[in-house]
């Protein structure tokens, strides 16, 4: 489902964010990408989502080399992924409903379908009834849950999550891990970048440990 073969990402100033990284994740698996800050975890997720392109090597998603996707193919790829950002990246002038509905609107879904699916996603993350709330009125944990609802509302086969429990207190973190476990149980492939792997132990994940851009375990 997702495979990296000898992937290197070098910045224009010559620094290497990743060097010769290879890994494989099968459908319905959970992969934890761990390492200290600056290890290259976020860059690895960005390569899978075609937000950046590798300097060398191959990044395969559904057997498609996303590193060589033409520019027009990138939106198609991203519509099949669910992205959870560390900083949530919610639109603060839009309600919770509108934020979660965004991937469905991009796909041109009908109004009734949007309403049904958004409510189902918010129900899953425990925010049903808060559709009209503005993100700024939510706590950090709630904002993260909105972000997760937005990532899964269009039922992607793969969810890429960057520090999904970062800056959350342990109670909220447990809730989110439980939520991710529920997605994995229905066959969603998870790739989670985190510097706190112990939090995700209930997901029984496989791990890839990065250090200065090199996979060491």
């Amino acid at each position, binding site marked *: 489902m997702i495979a990296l073969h000898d992937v290197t990402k070098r910045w224009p100033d010559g620094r290497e964010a990743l060097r010769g990284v290879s890994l494989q994740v099968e459908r319905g698996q959970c992969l934890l990408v761990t390492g200290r800050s600056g290890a290259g975890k976020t860059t690895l997720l960005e390569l899978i989502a075609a937000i950046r392109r590798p300097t060398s090597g191959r990044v395969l998603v559904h057997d498609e080399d996303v590193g060589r996707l033409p520019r027009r193919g990138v*939106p198609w790829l*991203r*519509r099949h992924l669910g992205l959870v950002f560390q900083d949530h990246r919610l639109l603060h002038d839009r309600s919770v409903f509108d934020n979660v509905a965004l991937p469905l609107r*991009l796909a*041109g879904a009908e109004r009734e379908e949007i309403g049904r699916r958004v409510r189902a996603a918010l129900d899953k993350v425990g925010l049903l009834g808060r559709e009209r709330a503005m993100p700024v009125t939510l706590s950090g944990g709630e904002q993260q849950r909105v972000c997760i609802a937005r990532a899964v509302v269009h039922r992607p086969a793969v969810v890429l999550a960057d520090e999904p429990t970062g800056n959350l207190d342990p109670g909220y973190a447990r809730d989110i891990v439980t939520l991710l476990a529920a997605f994995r149980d229905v066959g969603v492939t998870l790739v989670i970048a985190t510097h706190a792997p112990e939090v995700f132990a209930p997901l029984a994940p496989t791990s890839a440990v990065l250090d200065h851009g090199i996979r060491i375990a």
Partner: protein
Amino acid sequence: MRQWLRLHRRAFADAAGRLARGGFGSVFDVLVMVLALVLPLALYLTLVNAMPAAGSLAADPELTVWMRPDASPAEVDAVGRALRTQAGADRVRFIPKADALARLERTAGLGDVVASLGRNPLPDAWVVTGAREPADTLDGLRPVVAALPAVDQVIVDTDSTRRLRAILRALRVATAALGVLLGVAVVAITFNTIGLQCLARREEIAVSRLLGATDAYIRRPFVWFGALQGVLGGLGAWAAAALGVALVDRELATVPEWLAGSSGLRALLPSEGLALVAMATALGATGAWGSVWRQLRDEAT
């Protein structure tokens, strides 16, 4: 197809909502557009209204052949046949003396004078139209035609007529040039307005792209916004031009008919007005498209 239409419907609703919520900002943007459109429009209307006032000035050079008052119908026909064989004579038209008198009576407000005449003092006439270039095509024809039997007088366009025609032609070119320049201005205005909107919605655009928005999806509401501005600008310019024509016409109504011409000033025809709105819409959409294209190119991820 239904999905495509749905995406357009949403983009249109988004654009219309933004325009409505824009308040004074939207009003002033549209007003600037109206001003840019109304200037060449005013020149155009001045020209189309000036043409009849300039004595039905033809665009092409003309030569008028006055027949002698006592010329017989056979002699008149013979001159017509001779004229049609001349090189350089594109078109030959006959104006019977009765028609000329009727026109004099009708257009110059000289009904009373004509009625007091015992007989028609005007002769039959032929009007020969020559090619536009070279301007002196008909000059060489003059002595030949003057030598024909029963011809009284031959008049080629006078210098002043030629000068007036040249001025009108120059004005037409100036109007077209001004129209093009101010069309570019309309595109620039929309480009700038949409550019500012893109900046204000930068985060939304970035997040949408991360979630899989195509360039077309992002561009759509902005292009609709530009097009809507164009529609309003075009309609505003049409209304302003109609108002201007009505005001000037009201003033001209106080001028004697023989000086002002018998018919009133003409405003834009419905077909011309619709063409104006369509053009303004296209210009607005073009400006918006270009602006978003640049923004997306600059922020390509």
